[in-house]
């Protein structure tokens, strides 16, 4: 057993757990977006950042991947943590203006508006890569992946064409935290033979 503190509350954990897992087990809320228990953590969205302190020294780490250790002093709501969270939410609001899920999460953490202009009012995807990870790790296919890099990074199938590798299982749509995969999905599996929405 390992004991350490989160927000001055003593918690216990076993070797191999992460700070996030321990916090959740103890009902301490840390926001996450790119984390899903079905797949490996990537530590990309940085919403789960927490501050580690030791005397005057401190640093921010991603709790979803940070392993627990004896005597850690973890703080989940410090000024620095909130600054990162606030800016990430502000940027997400501008990057994915069409995602109600993101707006809901941001509002829950006190961010309701953004200083940034949106480049694409329809955008919902924030390229967390959960879809690609679930396809590789759970479905075992790797029909999609994140392609390109930096600001151009996006999710897609090779050569931006529907791919035979996709079995249209919809795991990516299910795991997507922002609902973005719903609009990308048809371009990956190819449009289904019949479109029933016309009947409705």
């Amino acid at each position, binding site marked *: 057993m390992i004991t350490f503190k989160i927000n001055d509350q003593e918690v216990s*954990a*076993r070797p*191999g*757990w*992460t700070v996030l*897992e*321990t916090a*959740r*087990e103890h*009902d301490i*809320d840390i926001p996450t977006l790119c984390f*899903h*228990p*079905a797949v490996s953590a990537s530590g990309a969205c940085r919403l789960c950042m927490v501050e580690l302190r030791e005397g005057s020294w401190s640093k921010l780490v991603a709790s979803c991947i940070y392993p627990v250790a004896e005597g850690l002093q973890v703080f989940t709501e410090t000024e620095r943590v909130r600054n990162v969270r606030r800016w990430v939410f502000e940027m997400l609001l501008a990057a994915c203006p069409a995602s109600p899920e993101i707006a809901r999460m941001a509002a829950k953490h006190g961010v309701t508006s953004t200083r940034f202009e949106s480049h694409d009012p329809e955008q919902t995807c924030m390229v967390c890569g959960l879809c690609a990870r*679930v396809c590789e790790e*759970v*479905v*075992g*296919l790797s029909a999609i992946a994140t392609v390109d890099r930096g600001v151009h990074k996006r999710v897609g199938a090779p050569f931006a064409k529907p791919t035979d590798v996709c*079995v*249209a*299982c*919809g*795991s990516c*749509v*299910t*795991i997507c935290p922002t*609902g973005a995969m*719903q609009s990308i*999905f*048809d371009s990956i599996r190819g449009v*289904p*033979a*019949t*479109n*029933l*929405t016309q009947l*409705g």
Partner: protein
Amino acid sequence: MSAYAKTGVFLCKCGDKIAPFINLEQLEKSVGAEPDVAHCATMAFACLKPGLEQITQIAVDKQLNRVIVAGCENRLMLSKFEEHLRPLELLKGQIDMVNLRGHVATVSDLDAEQKATKSAKLIAAAVAEMTALRPSSLTRARLQGPVVIVGNGIASFSAAAEMARQKIDYRLAVESADPGLIIERIHETYPGEQSYHPRLQKSIQEALQSPHGKLLVGRKLAMLSGVTGDYTLTFSDDQGAHEKFTAGAIIACLDAQFTRPKPGFGHDGKTVMIPSEMESLILRSGPPKGTVVFWISDYENGQPEFAALSAKSAWQMAAHIRQTSPAATVIMLYNQQMEVPLTAAERAMNRKLNLLWIPYDGAMRPTVQDGFLTFCNLSDHVEHELRWNHLVLSPERMITGETLRVARILGLVHKEGRFLTGHHARVRPEMVGREETYLAGSARLPCSLADALAQGRRAAAKTAEMFRKANAGELFVPRIVCVVDPEKCIGCGQCQELCDCGGIGVEEGPGGGLPRIVDPMVCTGGGTCAAACPYHALVLQNNSNDQREARVAALARRLGPDESMAFVCGWGGLPAADIAGKQGLKYDPRIHLLSVPCVGQIDACAMARALKEGASGLVLVGCLPETCHHSYGLDHAWARVNTIKKLLSLSGFQRERIALAHADLNRPEDFVRTVDSFTRTIAAMGPMVRTPEDQAKVDALYDLIKHNTRVRHLLSAGLRRPGEDTYQGDQRHALDYDRDFSAVLAEEFLQQRLLQVFRAAKGPFNLDELTGRLHEDPNQVATCLWEMVQNGQIGFTHKNHEAVYALS
């Protein structure tokens, strides 16, 4: 409590996603009180390490051999639980999930207690299924014997060379073992690739000379039997003598043929020719002089998808002509819809060689005349003329003759068509899919020589990987595949006809019987075949009909009079429901969802069971038409649902109590509409009236569909076969067929009800008594009784000058 099943149920709070919506305390209490539940616990996050460790600990302490996690989507999370519990020998099939979050917590405005009650029903159903599970043992797959490479396609050599490289024994069946001859003939199937020949020669030599390979020269494949790992191939020689070989795996290398285009293109094989003929000419008498026009005519052949391929091979031939015969003029004439498939370097070379590319307006077909060809120029709309001495057309490509014959023996012809495409969608990644590991060459889809060889290599590499795994003891027989009960199988062959994955084969048994065997490495576990077996001889192991019936019955018994249930297909309805739940869409809470891999997997008796045990309505939410991942499971479900509808009608119930619906996983709003529409229909009809007499009818309905082999046979016979293009209700004599089928059902249903009467009470009964009990027309009853007497099901004697009937 069950003697052997020890089931643990774990309820997940999922942070604030489940706990506030469902009263988990109440749920834990009621689930814990179920007789078949050995342990029930609630945890913060079952899926995170703390939760997983807790489950493992409890499973060890309580010696659980079944685990149910009630939390979220099984599609995403099940494999994680399976992986964690594998060390405890809890295998696939012994762990199940109920999606409380997506199917209960967020989808309605019920209060937390009501939701706990609903959850308890769904969990009890899952427990019942687990209790009915008879888990199979884990078996390793074994591959015995070499790899046999058949089909005589050029990819054979690259496949063999790859096998040699991987040091795996192979038998190579070829027409000729003379590299010179092989290369001489190659232009007939892959023209324009002369520059590739030296390399091809190397590959052929590698294949022919490896100590791992043995050659079967000049023999034809006559028959194939057995399963992956243990095949027997029969070859015949010129004299018709047969020889048998065993094989661990087979690689088929088949090439398509080039045929002359339709008349009207002026093909004469001498001056107007196809590329293979041009290459013969070059080989015979050197490069032609004068003007050679390559007309990329694939658009006009009706095969525009191969235009780029034709253009590339024509260009290579053209370049060869220009290089070896500087006096020749070479022109490429192409439909403007095609993009010229040359890279920058090739363009530079093209420029150096001065090969002209002339586009024409595709709306006007070029016309061949003696020595001239007219075409319409796109820019000036003038009909221009091209003078030619030799005109080379694109060929038509298709598979015929020997290629087609071998493909049939190998079971590769899934659909009638020009090529061997159109295999069913893959459903299981670890599946040893036939198309993937099996087939290489232009018979799949036209390709260049290099591509064909690459396919051969790829097929061989995958086969080698399978051997590597098997030899290392890491290749396991999939858990959820069909198995045949030889005691029950009569060899009627329905399943084999219905199977799309090629997993069902024939085994010669003693006495000429032909029981079916299943190749577990090829079976996709779709189970539509098992549901169609008239004798319940084909069973989808670890996911059997008995389990499904247990689950259905357990749920149906717990449903309130106005509640109904739905089967949701793993590829359509279930993901749509999962996503609807995730998005917080609301729908009628009276519907109870049961997930199933494919609605085609549901035996009609499981549907009947739901109605028999207390459900007021049953809807099967499959995927969209023509998108089934299995062998037309949706169409099969359609036939079964309609059978139940007829029987409901015969029993005096509303046909609308059962329905088939479609859902696309990416349209969760549509799913909600589907569910609401169905629940409205059921609500409008009210609960099913269940007087003893009514209940007896539903019981008879169930018994009929479960046990009556005539009805089950007819039902199977009417199912859509792979390769059939028509939907069941779409057939030419649909109405006649339907009427006949209805008549049979009416007859058999009456007989079933009579049997029910005889079994329930001691007879004998006379005609009046029977008609009185059943409220049916005396003439019909009399006819039925006579049938049954003839069949020996009942006997009759005379009593007071009146015939009386009793079980014989």
